[in-house]
């Protein structure tokens, strides 16, 4: 068979989380460009077919089925979130197509009954995050901790993992708010009066920005150490908040453009900056980038586009990524992707704060 | 098949309002056919005819609420055929609809206030006091929401409201409908007084006694056409027209 190899890409492209989808998609485009410029895979170029998942499992599964039945797509990257990824994974199992989830962190995606041969999870799961988070907390010297966040799977799982690992760190309260809440003043007041030295939280996107802006005048960041999950270490967040990003906030990120520890990362950043036309790039592209690279490598290894064989090739596959070697565990179908942890500090000569004390945790 | 009475309309007298051959349709059904009429200054003209012959439609067309598809309407010799109704109202046309369209949630006073417009040269300006002198009932209900008034009270309010706009020509659609006999008589008297102050009036009415006592001239409509016009006295004497177009 000739002609391009079709890759279905299903991401949130509208609404409040569109920035995630657009970010991941940028990485996908960059990687596909690189692969194709290098002669493609098995001599065939990759072709992207993009669909908007709208954060809705019914929409994301419908898109997947459409791509399978109408376009004959057999390889998928996406969707971005846990709920949509879980749903699409079922279709992948039924239709026997390769499905690489670049950013969903839920344990459930590749645990128990849900694990099957065709689903691969690149983002570190919440269990992994839990261990890493506690490590960082211990480094900070946290003795007591408060939790806050949206009431959804990622929050519950991450908090559970932190609790399971935190040893003698004392829990002083958990203050969950409904998904997509926009007013956090009550929670902030509660956090202030709670008996903890550290706060960890999960609101992301616009809600994280709202939280910061509401909490700052109350002095939350002056009186407590704050560590945020949900990849809020993203440069996009720092750029949006500008001078309003409180110094000293701890966060994690899949990637930061100013990391200087690896040659491969510098090369990737140069290419990305070139591709996007700006030097200060965001975090999400790397997830899409790695997903494409994994897929291309697997097809190459398998020597065929047949999804069953490609899936088999992904098991145990190791590739070179901008952040070093990453391997997909053949048992769990999870990749051991690293993530950055760090503490925001304002930068001279720049509006956007950057993370210092940057550690690339594996 | 028209039965024009010849005597009355002297071509020389200039009408304040001239309607020339207008046609009106609702969707596909044509309701008015070539309706022409004239009203002189200070004249009271009646439109009579059975239900559904087009009396109200004629008034709505003049007011600019239901536009006519062809023909011409001249107000003080200027064409107003397709003009929006608020401009007509500001230019001295007043409309009292048949369905008593009071603003139900506004109080009686607010209903009057909303319709208030500057006085017109040569006409005594209308004030609340003058209106209440005309309809004493209304004064008792100043602060009651108009929607709670009885049917007849609403009828009075619609007339009063239009007067607050200081109109030069009033289109009165069935003013006596639903009004008690005593008040009908009073309204009749007031209408005559109004006319005597120089206001022109076009009135559609079913109550023939009322019409014949009040009006200067009458137009009889049948199926959207003017089939007769003459002075009130002529119509009173013309039993044939009465029997043919107004009785059974």
């Amino acid at each position, binding site marked *: 068979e000739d002609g391009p190899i079709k890759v279905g890409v299903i991401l949130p492209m509208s609404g409040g989380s569109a920035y995630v989808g657009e970010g991941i998609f940028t990485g996908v485009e960059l990687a596909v460009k690189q692969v194709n410029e290098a002669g493609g895979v098995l001599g065939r170029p990759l072709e992207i077919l993009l669909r908007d998942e709208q954060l809705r499992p019914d929409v994301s599964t419908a898109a997947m089925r459409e791509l399978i039945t109408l376009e004959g797509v057999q390889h998928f990257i996406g969707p971005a979130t846990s709920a949509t990824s879980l749903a699409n994974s079922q279709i992948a199992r039924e239709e026997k197509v390769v499905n690489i989830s670049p950013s969903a962190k839920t344990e459930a995606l590749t645990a128990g009954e849900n694990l099957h041969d065709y689903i691969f999870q690149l983002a570190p799961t919440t269990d992994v995050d839990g261990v890493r988070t506690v490590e960082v907390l211990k480094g900070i010297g946290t003795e007591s901790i408060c939790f806050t966040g949206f009431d959804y799977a990622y929050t519950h799982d991450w908090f559970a993992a932190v609790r399971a690992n935190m040893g003698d760190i004392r829990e002083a309260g958990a203050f969950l708010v*409904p998904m997509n809440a926009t007013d956090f003043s009550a929670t902030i007041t509660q956090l202030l009066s709670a008996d903890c030295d550290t706060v960890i939280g999960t609101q992301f*996107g616009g809600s994280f920005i709202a939280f910061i802006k509401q909490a700052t*005048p109350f002095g939350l960041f002056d009186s407590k150490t704050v560590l945020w999950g949900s990849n809020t270490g993203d440069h996009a967040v720092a750029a949006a908040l500008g001078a309003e990003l409180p110094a000293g906030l701890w966060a994690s990120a899949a990637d930061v453009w100013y990391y200087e520890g690896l040659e491969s990362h510098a090369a990737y950043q140069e290419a990305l900056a070139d591709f996007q036309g700006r030097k200060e790039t965001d975090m999400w592209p790397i997830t899409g980038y790695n997903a494409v690279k994994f897929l291309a490598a697997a097809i190459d290894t398998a020597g065929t586009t047949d999804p069953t064989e490609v899936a088999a090739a992904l098991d145990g596959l190791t590739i070179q990524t901008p952040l070093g070697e990453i391997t997909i565990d053949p048992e769990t179908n999870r990749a051991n992707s690293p993530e950055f942890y760090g503490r925001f500090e304002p930068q001279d000569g720049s509006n956007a704060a950057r993370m210092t004390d940057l550690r690339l945790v594996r | 098949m028209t039965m024009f009475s010849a005597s009355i309309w002297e071509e020389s007298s200039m009408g304040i309002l001239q309607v020339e051959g207008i046609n009106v349709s609702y969707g596909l059904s044509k309701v008015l056919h070539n309706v022409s009429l004239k009203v002189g200054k200070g004249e009271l003209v009646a439109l009579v005819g059975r239900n559904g012959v087009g009396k109200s439609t004629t008034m709505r067309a003049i007011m600019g609420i239901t536009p006519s598809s062809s023909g011409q309407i001249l107000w003080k010799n200027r064409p107003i055929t397709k003009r929006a109704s608020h401009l007509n109202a500001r230019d001295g046309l007043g409309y009292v609809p048949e369905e008593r369209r009071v603003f139900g949630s506004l109080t009686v006073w607010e209903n009057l206030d909303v319709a208030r417009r500057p006085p017109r040269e040569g006409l005594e300006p209308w004030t609340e006091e003058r209106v209440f002198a005309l309809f004493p009932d209304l004064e008792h209900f100043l602060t009651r929401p108009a929607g709670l008034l009885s049917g007849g009270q609403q009828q009075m309010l619609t007339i009063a409201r239009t007067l607050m706009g200081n109109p030069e020509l009033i289109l009165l659609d069935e003013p006596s409908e639903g009004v008690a006999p005593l008040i009908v008589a009073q309204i009749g008297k007031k209408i005559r007084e109004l006319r005597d102050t120089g206001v022109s009036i076009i009135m559609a009415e079913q109550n023939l006694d009322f019409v014949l006592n009040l009006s200067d001239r009458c137009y009889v409509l049948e199926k959207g056409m003017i089939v007769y016009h003459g002075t009130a006295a002529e119509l009173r004497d013309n039993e044939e027209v009465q029997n043919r177009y107004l009785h059974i």
Partner: protein
Amino acid sequence: MFANPMILFIQVMNSFSLAMNLFIIAAGLTLIFGVLRIVNFAHGAFYMVGAYLALSILGVTGNSNLGFVLGVLGAGAAMGAMAFVVERVLLSQLYDKEHMLQLLFTFALVLVIKDVVKMIWGSGQYSISAPPFLRGAVNLGISPYPKYALFLCIAGPIIAVAIWFFMERTRWGRILRAAREDRVMLNALGTDVKLVYSGVFVAGAALAAMGGALAAPRSAVDPGMDALVIIDAFIIVIIGGLGSLLGSFIGALILGFLTVMGSIYLQEWAIVASYVMMVVILLVRPWGLFGKPDEERH
């Protein structure tokens, strides 16, 4: 919490400032419904556009006190101008048609506006900071409290009284209320109802936009902000009684307190609290707290 009166006080303040933030948004929705009888789904989108417009204006003026005032007013003016065009060219053709078409129209407007915003400003997040004189906290004697939240507590009632005065105590207000009932008749009484309608739609849209600009310093400017606000605004307007300004004010207070107290006592179950409240209020008072039944005489 009740053991500590200071915290209780802060939470009450939190409730009130949130309520006023919500009220400013709901006021425009009430106004448009009250006169035009249109359930404006695009209200949230107008709110979002307002925030983005303020963002762009502040980009030019810089983050000064004057810049902020210009941003808020400019957002209202620019949104109002756009609303005027939309009303004149499109919406005005639908007044005589079925109610549901207007609903469909405003829904379509949401889709269009969202994408146009995305085209102009992208899908990333932005932030507007409070103007210098409202930054930081003020000491209320027993505890510090954000100045900006305090500012909302004052701005809300002022806006409420201004609108109330306009609607109930001026002839203009009476004309608006008459227009809601019978526009054809009002027109025949000499009022340019088309202009009244445009004016109301413009004013409602401008209020939404200014609401967006005013809300921005305590939230993010991003493409999801419209969806989050519209349901809150609807709940307020409905429980207060459609078209009733006082109702919206009280409705905003109720929702504000419920949101704040709910997130303390109900935590994540607060998600259903506002709906439970709406159900209860509508069952007890089917026309909302201050709404009037559309009673007719027969």
